[in-house]
């Protein structure tokens, strides 16, 4: 470990951090534009051409709004909640391989913050911390809707985390590694895992929707019942954090789906183009982002099409459908793998 290594990593961390913030910001804009498109509306169009500056205006507004901490709330936890939610959602992006290895001035710089050998487990660890942000925030508000939303959110998220964890086991059985970098490397060309593990992908995607609290799993904040759910009492940047964390989560889970099942920065005929290494890497990164945007669009598409589940239906789906399906998938994968090997 040398000093240059630290510099490299710091630059990559900061750049990726800023990019993910930017994308999360513009996801809010995209969400509104996509919603408008689907609902025959115009959407934001006042701030700048096509309302392109809208996210900046929204972000700026969050800074200049009054912070309200209800007198009945637990002050410390009330602040900790959104902070934790935002923090955990930002931490998950560490292990995502954004691209191959760049070669600048004779030094190899992989476009990944950290290729942990337990990448997949790291993600689950951090994601499960996200529950605390919501639970603490909802509880600290000392508000009935907030508490109910928080309880709903936590039981939903932990239930679907189980399905998520199980769905990836079959993928890990095929890949034989937990490192995201290696998983992506294995999907060279058109060797995408979605073709080998369609069921795992399906379960993972459904659980990702639930983890991000997106429709049809947006019970924790469902407006019609719980006013605002766990963030009923929040205002100013703390509300912004909750909103923002949702979009960062959406971005990160799209990145995960793209890298685990859709080959990440790999794309077919990557080698036959005859481009230099750096250009290929950057092209790969571009393709990766396109895949991510496709997933984000899918998230939004679903949100503006489907109604949401009821609490018991959601839990039943999680425990009685997703869980057994994931187990079944493990057995199938195991059987097929053994059959191939022998």
């Amino acid at each position, binding site marked *: *470990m040398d000093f240059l290594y630290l510099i490299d990593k710091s630059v990559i*961390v900061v750049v990726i951090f800023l990019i993910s913030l930017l994308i999360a910001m513009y996801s809010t804009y995209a969400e509104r534009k996509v919603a408008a498109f689907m609902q025959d509306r115009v959407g934001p169009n006042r701030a700048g051409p096509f309302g392109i500056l809208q996210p900046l205006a929204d972000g700026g507004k969050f800074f200049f709004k*009054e912070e309200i901490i209800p007198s*009945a709330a637990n002050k410390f936890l009330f602040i900790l909640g959104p902070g934790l939610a935002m923090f955990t959602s930002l*931490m998950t992006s560490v292990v995502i391989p954004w691209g191959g290895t760049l070669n600048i001035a004779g030094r190899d710089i992989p476009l990944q*913050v950290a290729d942990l050998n337990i990448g997949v487990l790291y993600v689950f660890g951090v994601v499960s911390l996200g529950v605390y942000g919501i639970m603490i925030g909802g509880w600290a508000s000392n508000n009935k809707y907030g508490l109910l939303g928080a309880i709903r959110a936590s039981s939903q998220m932990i239930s679907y985390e189980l399905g998520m964890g199980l769905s990836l086991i079959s993928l890990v059985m095929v890949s034989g590694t937990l490192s995201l970098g290696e998983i992506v490397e294995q999907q060279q060309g058109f060797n995408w895992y979605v073709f080998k593990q369609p069921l795992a992908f399906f379960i993972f995607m459904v659980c990702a929707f639930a983890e991000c609290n997106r429709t049809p799993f947006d019970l924790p904040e469902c407006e019609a019942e719980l006013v605002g759910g766990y963030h009923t009492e929040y205002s100013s*940047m703390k509300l912004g*954090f909750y909103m923002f964390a949702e979009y960062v989560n959406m971005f990160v889970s799209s990145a995960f789906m793209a890298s685990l099942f859709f080959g990440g920065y790999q794309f077919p005929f990557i080698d036959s183009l005859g481009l230099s290494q750096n250009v290929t890497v950057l092209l790969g990164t571009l393709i990766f982002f396109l895949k991510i945007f496709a997933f984000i669009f899918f998230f939004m598409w679903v949100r503006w099409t489907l109604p949401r589940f009821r609490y018991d239906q959601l839990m039943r789906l999680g425990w009685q459908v997703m869980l057994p399906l994931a187990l079944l998938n493990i057995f199938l994968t195991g059987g097929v793998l053994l059959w191939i090997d022998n």
Partner: protein
Amino acid sequence: METSNDGYIPVLIQLIVAGGFVAGTLWITHILGPNRKSAKKLETFECGIEPQGNARLPFSIKYFLTAILFVLFDVEVIFFYPWATNFREFGTQGFVSMGIFVSLFLLGFLYLRKKQAFKWE
């Protein structure tokens, strides 16, 4: 695969950046935002009427049960991971032993189902 803990240094950097961003933003908002408080404004929202007591009432045991079930199953899921990573090396024997483990897992699952732990209505 990396063997040293060097791989975690960037995670630390990310931790500092993310933590700094969160704390910094909250702090700046605190400075920038106006501060005009009143007793009514700081009241808990309760659909426009006076708040009725403490919101921290005991809630249904069913949520708690969900949490317990999660802990139970999640611990078992963790056991799957090392096995799944080395699945090909273990071969048939590994598959059979895991089959036994999963059957126990499923047995517990069926028991809970029978006990109606999955009835949320």
